Each structure stands twice: as structure tokens, then as C-alpha cells.
């Protein structure tokens, strides 16, 4: 198996929401966090990260604010909204069911 997986369509949104469940973060930190936690298995392509961030912001799942980063530079921080949290719960559940089902099929079929 290769060490890196391309992200399934749509799962990026879910990962971003999960990553943002805690403190506000800027775009770079989001991509770093996803990479770290997945132990470098999941590589986030910048070309899809920013459009995805802007898209789910438009959908009202996250909101953004300009703040000052750890380097003292102007950076855009994203934060999950209440709607975003509800969506995250819903989609995490769906994902768990989906992956469990796929796993069962792979084991038993």
C-alpha cells in the first residue's frame, strides 16, 4: 500500500470541520493538522483546501476572522459554527456507518 491516500470527494469538508472543532485555525494549520494526525497518510492538496474552506464558509458551516498569527503576521482564522457542529456530528455518524459497512463487506463477502 502506498503511504499517501488521495482524499475521497467530499471527505475533505468533513476533515476540515473535525479539525476546526477545537480552537480557530488558519488554512496552513488545518492542512498540517490533517497531515499530522493521519500520520502523513492523508495529504491535503492546497489547490482543493482553500476552495473547500471558502465553500463551507459560504455554506455557513464555518466562519472566518482576520487575526494575528504566531509569527505576528496577518492571517485568516477559521472557526466552526453551531451549524457546522451539527453537520459534523451528522456526517461523522454517517461516515462511521459507511466505513463499518464497507469493512463488514470486505471481511465477510
Amino acid at each position, binding site marked *: 500500500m502506498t503511504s499517501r491516500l488521495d482524499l475521497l470527494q467530499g471527505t475533505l469538508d468533513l476533515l476540515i470541520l473535525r479539525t476546526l472543532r477545537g480552537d480557530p485555525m*488558519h*488554512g*496552513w*494549520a488545518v492542512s498540517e493538522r490533517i497531515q499530522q494526525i493521519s500520520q502523513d497518510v492523508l495529504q491535503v492538496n*492546497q*489547490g482543493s483546501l482553500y476552495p473547500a474552506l471558502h465553500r463551507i464558509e*459560504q455554506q455557513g458551516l464555518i466562519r472566518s476572522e482576520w487575526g494575528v498569527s504566531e*509569527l505576528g503576521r496577518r492571517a*485568516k482564522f477559521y472557526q466552526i459554527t453551531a451549524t457546522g457542529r451539527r453537520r459534523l456530528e451528522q456526517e461523522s455518524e454517517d461516515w462511521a456507518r459507511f466505513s463499518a459497512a464497507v469493512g463488514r463487506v470486505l471481511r465477510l463477502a
Partner: protein
Amino acid sequence: MTTRGWFSRIRAVFARSRAERDLHDEMDFHLIMQAKKHMDAGLAKADALARARAEFGSVELTKEDARDVRAFRWLEEFFQDARVAARGFARAPLFALTVILTIALGLGLNTAVFTAFDAYILRPFAVRNPHALADFVWRDQRGFTHALTRPEYQLMQRDNPAFAESFGYMNMVARVGGQPVFGQFVTGNYFSMLGVGPSLGRTLQPEDALIPGAGAVTVLSHAAWEGRFAGDSSIIGRTIVVRGVPLLVVGVARDGFGGLESRARDLWIPLTMASAMGLPDPFDAVAPAPLGVVGQMRASLTLDAARSALTAWTRSTITDRPPKELPSSAWLVTRETPIPLVGETVVIFAPIVVAFGLVLLLACANVANMMLARGMARQREIGICLSLGATRGRLIRQLLTESLMLALPAAALGFLISSAAIDGGVRLLFAALPANFAPLIRIVPLHTDVRVFAFMIGGAVASALLFGLAPALQATRPSIVQTARGNFDNEFRPSRLRNALVVAQITICVVLIAAAGVMLRSSAKLQQTDSGMRTHDIVHLVIQDRHRAEVVAALRAHPLVETVASARSTPIDALFGSAPLAPGSGVGRVAFNIVSPEYFTALELPVVRGRNFLPDEAASSVPVAIVTESTARKLWGSNDPIGQIVRLETPATGSVLTPFKTAHVVGVVRDVVSGVLYDPPTNPLVFFPGTPEAPGVRLIVRTRGAVETARRTLDSDIERAMPGSIDQIRLLDEYVAAQAFPMRIAYWISSVVGGIALLLTLSGIYGVLSYIVAQRTREIGIRMSLGADRRAVVALVLRQSARLALMGLAIGSLIALALTRAIASELQSILTFDLAAFSVGPALVVAASLIAAFFPARRATRVEPIIALRQD
């Protein structure tokens, strides 16, 4: 979507530069963080940055994807396109100006026509529930229409399946202070049914119209109150005299209400006053006068359903007639607008709408050609855009935005032009109308409403699409392969489309010019038409029967009067009545008029055989007849008409023709028209004897001296002696002019339309040929360097123009011929094949297209071969 989301989108549109800066900053920050990570891992600063960039991929592409997320992207692009277009127009202001003016002209004229169409046909009366209003009459077994009598109307009010309510009315034209007053006698529920309140005082109430002969009150229209009484509010409680009857003014109707007639009413009077004011009595116990009836259909009832319900009602209710006059069907026509939108209206308006629509089409074709030429000139620019990755759709959108930016200012300018056109049109209408007819016409206020506005914007957008889309599609067609080689020229030369546009323009132009020519010739012919009688120096009067004897006596004794004659139908006004002849006579129906013996002398209509009516015959309606020469020829061939018998197939009783059922011919007069100038004087016409004293007949008075002076003198003398006795007093020549009026207006309109069409075609051909010459500069250069002389070059260009002109000419002439034939089948006075109209018109178009070609041709001869060959 959250409100916040919407806000950020809208903000993104208007604060585009800020959104762009944020986007840039965000990407930048990411790169810096990534580079820092690499530096922490031990890379040199430059290498770290390069690696971060490589990992990121195309920053611009990511930005583009992020931008696409914004929902109002198209709006941003629209503003962007608009800015680009504006810059382009600023560079070529003459082009932009020409396009805007051309479209504004086409759109403005069409808006003017639409405004009139809207005011008369589309805009409902300002009353309660106008959609449910319908006129009601019924038809008998033979197809004649009948109105309800008042007792029948009462039955209808009490119980009928279709109308929730209905009112009865009779119309009247009287004179007050020398001016015609349009009045209406109405039942008491008129105002309450229509939901029209007063602006002053009160409206008519049911109590006003209860007792025949009582209810001498009136309600003025707001327009009449302002026009005649200067908006004086002390008018309430005053008395005005109409037809010699004093009426108490009790109120002024709501502003904007003028009744349900195409000519607005000035005042309303209770129906109970009708007979006291000289109308047939609707309350007569034996022969009640018929009423006009307008009903308000019950909710949820369609016109068809109401019609069939009323047919059943009429059949079961009206049973007391002779078998042939029993009802066969009810006849309902919507009364929602001044002129109902029915097939007949469409047929009348269609030529006008089509002619003006064609002008707009011409304008669009012109502009399309200009845009096409511009698109070609911009091939290089468009080619570069395409090779830089712009999609075709995006470029087409850009070009359409340009079209729209030209169309919207054109719509605004067109609005001004339409106001001017309406103003000029109304002025022309009144200028062309005989003076004593002008007060009869009141133009409904032609103001802009939502429909007109929608028409303008719709027209502008439609024309933008028409003139923008074809060029846009064509211009964005260069192949990438070519442009990659640095050749931005377009392989595809849309000469076919361009030529088709020019041919179509010339075709339309020929049709419009030929139509104008036919109208001009027909109008001239009509003016030269010999009506068969002398209409000069004749004053024509319509008087009240109550004062008839005194007025006739006064006229006979008046020093300015030479002869007093009478006629049942005005000699030239509308179609005479006609009667069917007994079977076997060879002619189906004949027109008739009942005239006094003096009629023939007053109108200088000589009796060429036999004799005139004798006074005794006139006084006691002896069954004798005078026929025209053509009538005699048609009925009896070469036999002597004197002593022949005219047998009429008329009802046994109740008709004015009853005494003349079997009439002996005593005389023959020269051919004369039967009331309508448009019809030939050879149509069959029979005269029967009558006197000026008979009720309802018109007076025809030959005067001495200047006829207008005589008219005024007679008017004031009679009015002084017998106030309110005259309903109309006009010159007979004015009736002639009034009859020629529609044709004159048609001629004027078609001339204006034809002239504008010619102008547009001229500029269209000029534009296209100029462009072609510019395109063929190199070819012309080669020809000239190979020895072609100037004449050959001019011929080259002119040939191109002439070929298009001849094609358009052929098609246009055929269409025009077919059209005039179709119209002529409806109107006899239209000339079908008028050589003058069909040769001068097209010749004019050909001459115009050659003139338009001349200047580009001359420019072609100035091509310097060396310079032309060095191009590119």
C-alpha cells in the same frame, strides 16, 4: 443559506478589490508558513520558499477556484465586462453613438405604437372588475342583431344565469356652447355596478332613474368638469342646459373615469330623461326603444359559458316576435378595454405593428452588421483572449454585455423619441382632421405604464440579443492552431450572413416603400374621386325632432339659404342603409336613401331621364323611386327604366321602407356614391321621396356666400331662437375630408415608416460596403498593380451592391404585390397593381443603394497598390 453568507457574497461583489487582497494575503501567508516549516527543517531560505511554491502548485489557479465559490461571480464578471465595454466605446465613440441612435429610433417608434395599442386595447377601464364586463345583444334567425328593450332588460336584471348585474344605456351627442358633448343615459345602478365614486358631490343613484320624465340631474366626468367648467367646484347645484333641458349638476365622477366607450363620455343622465331630451322612449308602453346592455359576468364564468347560458335565456325569454325574428343566439363581446382584443382588431392593427416591427428589425440588422464588422476588426484581440485560455462562453458573454450596454441607453433615448413621436402623431392627427370634427376626437391619455415599460426593456434586450448574438458567435470562432502560429485572422468570413442581412434589409425597404407608394396613390385617387355630386357650399344639420318644424321654417326663410333639402342618410358619412330586392331581379341588395325633391338640386345631381319627385309624393310617401344610371343598367339592361318597378323584400310593418315596397321608377340620375367615397359610384342606389319635416332626417342646406360664414350665422341665429335644437352643424365638405382622413393618416404613417426604412437601408449598405472595401484592400491592390483601372475597381464594388440590391428588389416586390392584393380584397379603393408605386419605389431603393455604394467605391479607387500589398 445564512444571512451572513448572503452578506459576504454581496460584499464580495462590491468590495471586489478587498476580497481579492484577502485572497492574495491568505495564499501568501500559507506559502510563508510552509517555507518556515522547511527552514526549521534546515533548508536555506530561498530553497525553502521555492519548495513551498512547488508544493502549492499554481497559486493563480487556486485563487480562481476559490473565487468560483462566490455565488455572485457572474455579477462581478458582468461589471468587469461592462468596464471593458465602456473602455471600448470610449475608444470608438462614433460607433457607439451610431448604434445607440439606430436602435433608439427603431425602439422609440415601436414604443409609440405600443403605447397607443396599450392605451386602447390592453389597458382595462379603471372600474371594478373590468375583466367581467361584456356587451350583450342577440341575433335572430336571419342573423340580424337586436338589443334588449327596457322591459326585457328588467327581466334580465331580475333573473339571468350569466350576469351578476347589468346596466342599460343609450348614447347621445348634444351641443353645449357650440361644442359637442358626449352624453350617456344610464340606468340608476350604473355607477354602483362599476364601483365608480364621485370626486365631488354624488354619483347617480337608483332613485334618480325611477320615474319616466323625472330625474333631471347629471353627473359630469372629471375631464369635462376641468375642460369645460375650469374645475370650478361651485358647479354642484348649478343648472346646465343640454338640448334645451335644464339639468341639475349633482356631482363630478372620479378622476380618470370616462365611461366604457372608446370616446370618453362627458356626462351621464338618468335613463328616465331620454325621451324628454329627444331620444326614442325606452319607457314607451307600445314600442319601447332598445337599450345597450353591459353586464358583469358572475365570478368563475368564462365568456363562452356566459354566452351559451344567455343564448338559452334569450330563447326562452323573448318569444313575442314573428318567427323569423326569434332569437337564435346571444352575442357577448368583452368590454374590458376601449377596443376589444378580438380577431378584427388584430387584423386592423397588424399592418401597423408589422410595419413598425420591420423598422426595428432593419435597425437591428444594421447594428448586427456593424457589430459583425467590429467583431472582425477585433479578431486579433479575441484570438489572444482565446489562446490565453478564455472560454468561448465567457467571450460570448462579454460581447453580449457590450450589446446590452448599447441597448439600454438606446431604450432610454428611445423613450424620449417615443414621447416625441406620440406628441407629433397626435398633432398630425388633429392637423389633418377637419376643424369641426376635431372636438369629436379625444385621445385617451397616452401615458407610460408597467406594460409600456416592460415592452421597452423587453424590446431593448431582445434587440440586444438579435444584434449581438450572431456577431458574438461568429467572432469567437478562430481556431487555436492558427492563433498559436501568431495568425489571429479568422478563417471564417461571414460574408454570407452579412449579405443575407443586406438582402433582407433591401427586401423590407422595398416592401415598406412600395406600401407607402400605394397608400399615396390611393389617397390621391380618393381625393380626386368624383363623388357624383357637388358637396361645396352645403351645410349639413342634425336637429332635434321637437324643434324640427320651426327650424326648417327658419332655414327656409333665412337670407343666406338657397335651398333646404333633406336626406335620411347623410350623403357622405357612412354606408347607406340597404334593402334586399325581391328574388329574380338580378341584383341582391340595393343601397337606398329617402330624400326630398330639393336634394337633387341642392347637390347638383341632375335628373337625366324622367322627372324629379313631386312635392305631393314627398309629403305622402307615394311609392315612386329615382335610380342611378348604373342601377338602371344593372336591373333592366337597355330597357327604358321609367315605369319599371322596384320590388323590395322588406318587413310588412315597422320599417321606413314599408311604404315603398313596390315603387315605380319616375326618374334616373347620374351615378353617385352611396355614402362611402371608397366604394364606386356605380354600386346600385335607389332614392325614395321624403320631406325635411319627417322625424330623424338630416337637413342639407345650400347656402349663399362664404359657406363657413353662413354656417356660423345659421348656427347662432337658430340657437338664439330655439336653444338646444341643433345637435350637429357642419360643412358637407368636412364629411368628405373626414372620410379621406384614415387614408391620409395611413399615407402619412407609411411615408414616415418608408422614409426611415430607406435611411436605415442606406446607412446599412454604406456600412457593409465600407467594411468589404477595407477587407478587400489587398485584393484591390493586387488587381490594380496587375493593371485594373479605376473604372474596373468601382465596377467591382458597385457590382457587389447591385447584386444584393437586385435580389432584395425581386423578393421585396413579390411580397409587396402579394400584400397589396390581400389588402385590396378588403378595401376596394386600394390599388392592387399601381405601376407608378411599383416602379418609382423600387427605383428609389436601387438609387439609394447605388449612392450608398458610391463612397466606399471611391475609397477603393484610392487604394495605393504598394501600401496595400505591404499590409501584414
